């Protein structure tokens, strides 16, 4: 019965979301692309911010556009609404308040850096305080970026490391602090894009709507306080803005998406168990096409673990390195993932084949999916209560 409901929902959602993405891509590119900094328009393709822009107030639109155009942190901070949007997005996706970066001491920033070698390096640089040449800065930034991409630096640790580097450069009179700042902004953008990809859209829409309401209320209050509320004629007449049917449709789609994503945890658990049964019946997993079953199961589990731990597996990261990276973040999911990693290793490099290996890997995979479903369910219940 549950499977039937889920399939019905899928059948309904897929065409609707395809329509929404087509429409939003076409319109958003036309409206906004020319104003974006290079590399940034991707954000419009991966979320419905474009849709939201259409139904948003002029204030909200301006704030979002400012955020998209911005090249430095100060630029974002100058506009209070933009700054709040960036901060809330960053906070939603990492649990870290980006605005505290400026006020934190170097010691506090260093304590945020989870990679000991990078922390040691920055600590040493901070203590010696020597001049950093542009090529030194390049190399340091490349090292930090590499560690961040490989997942050995968390987003907040990366931001903190860049902040320390910026301070060292500013203190020693180096010329490259704007370059480091640009990297900070790029990281923010990546995190926002990633957050949109990871299904934080509902939170985003809710947050933006709340900000919009707050900003409207603020402007109304300030007008009342300043005595600027103009009332023309004998009575105040409220009018709804004229909207086309397309915009109404997009707005409804945004609400639908928000509702679906709000319930995505339960849906995820349901789909997870369905996926497990599809796999048992020999179907495909994770879009890995013609790859053999054990690698397919492993790479699908990596996707799950990436979602749960927030650590993305880099191209040069080995399966064992990745296991070590996520070990402390997985809770009880670590046991099936560890077993599945070993199964993959034996299949991939020891040449171990056979039905037994496949069945074992499948068992570990299903266990992982089940535990993840339970975990998501528990989080959902925690929120509800």
């Amino acid at each position, binding site marked *: 019965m549950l499977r039937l409901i889920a399939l019905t929902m899928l059948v309904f959602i897929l065409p609707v979301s395809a329509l929404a993405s087509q429409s939003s891509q076409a319109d958003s590119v036309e409206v906004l692309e020319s104003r974006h900094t290079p590399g940034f328009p991707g954000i419009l393709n991966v979320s419905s911010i474009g849709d939201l822009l259409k139904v948003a107030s002029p204030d909200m639109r301006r704030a979002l556009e400012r955020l998209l155009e911005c090249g430095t942190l100060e630029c974002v901070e100058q506009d209070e609404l933009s700054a709040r949007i960036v901060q809330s997005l960053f906070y939603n996706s990492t649990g870290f308040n980006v605005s505290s970066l400026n006020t934190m001491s170097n010691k506090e920033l260093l304590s945020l850096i989870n990679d000991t070698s990078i922390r040691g390096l920055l600590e040493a640089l901070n203590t010696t305080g020597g001049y950093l040449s542009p*090529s030194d800065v390049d190399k340091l930034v490349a090292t930090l970026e*590499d560690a961040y991409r*490989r997942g050995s630096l968390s987003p907040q640790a990366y931001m903190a490391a860049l902040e320390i580097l910026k301070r060292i450069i500013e203190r020693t009179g180096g010329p490259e602090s704007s370059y480091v700042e640009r990297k900070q902004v790029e990281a923010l953008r990546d995190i926002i894009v990633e957050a949109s990809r990871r299904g934080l859209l509902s939170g985003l829409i809710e947050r933006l709507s709340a900000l919009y309401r707050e900003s409207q209320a603020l402007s109304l209050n300030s007008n009342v306080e300043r005595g600027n509320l103009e009332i023309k004629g004998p009575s105040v007449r409220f009018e709804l803005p004229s909207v086309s049917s397309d915009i109404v449709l997009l707005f409804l789609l945004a609400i639908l998406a928000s509702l679906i994503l709000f319930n995505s945890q339960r849906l995820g658990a349901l789909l997870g168990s369905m996926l497990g049964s599809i796999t048992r019946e020999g179907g495909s997993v994770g879009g*890995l096409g013609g*790859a053999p079953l054990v*690698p*397919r199961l*492993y*790479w699908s589990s990596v996707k799950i673990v990436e979602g749960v731990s927030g650590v993305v597996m880099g*191209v*040069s*990261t*080995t*399966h*064992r*390195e990745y296991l070590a990276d996520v070990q402390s973040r997985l809770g009880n999911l670590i046991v099936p993932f560890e077993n599945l990693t070993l199964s993959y*290793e034996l299949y*991939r*490099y*020891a*040449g171990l084949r056979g039905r037994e290996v496949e069945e074992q890997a499948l068992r570990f995979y299903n266990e992982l999916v089940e535990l993840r479903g339970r975990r998501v369910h528990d989080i959902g219940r925690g929120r509800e209560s």
Partner: protein
Amino acid sequence: MISVVVEKASSILVERDSEVRLILASLLARGHALLEGVPGVAKTYTAKTIASLLNLTFKRIQMTPDLLPSDITGGFVFDQKTGEFKLRKGPIFANILLVDEINRASPRTQSALLEAMQERQVTVEGVTMLLEEPFMVIATQNPIEFEGVFPLPEAQLDRFIARIPVGYPSTKGFIEILRRSDEIEEAILNLKPVMSREDVLEAIRGASSVRVDDSIYEYIGRIVEESRRHPSVKLGGSPRAGIAIVRLAKAWAYISNRSYVIPDDVKAVAIPALAHRIILNPEYEVEGVKPEAVIKEVLGKVPVPRP
């Protein structure tokens, strides 16, 4: 059995686990190891501990500028009793030869040694003698000194399958050394072998039969090629460098009780196997770029086999 050697050595030597494993991997890969580090970081102790744990003949040469090739290889001496010339074998006729401060010997003596390392045979006055298997040279050198030393040329460095940097211990390790220094010396003196010569030969055969997936060969190939393409590199890894990585990775896997190589093994041995074989462009060298950092960067760039 080999893991017992690692365990025993690591229990005596403080924070030398990685060095011990790399020396053993070099032995199992039928190569020679060069330990590089400042004086007083237990290079000689590490080599001696390993030799003592393996029931193999062990000899040590302290290199000096006036040492002659015949001091290493040996020579024919006249026996007055029999009236014949008899071969007096030099210290090179051992299973494990510790060559302390190799860069203190003259180039002539160095090349005599390095030739024996490569050919695994010694020619004394026209008589060629094969060296007994296993044969391994563990050389040490101090990278800091410039006076009274003859740095090994790149072609000769290439003879070593691995260059193993031996650094300072951590503060915690250092305090442990201070606390246990007498105990460590005594423990090394009283070490009993845990592997016989036959066991070592068996382990060498075992290491060479470790499985290497085709994707691992491709991975190693890409690492070596990428080391040649790196902008700061004048001369990158050669095919011999690639072979060294394969052999060391197999031995590393064997020491880790595995019968197959995984990308982690390749990563573990890539720096010791490659760093001493690449030559940097002078402008980068002046800037303080180190070959180890270049290889690290290469490893961070080359994708591991997928899916």
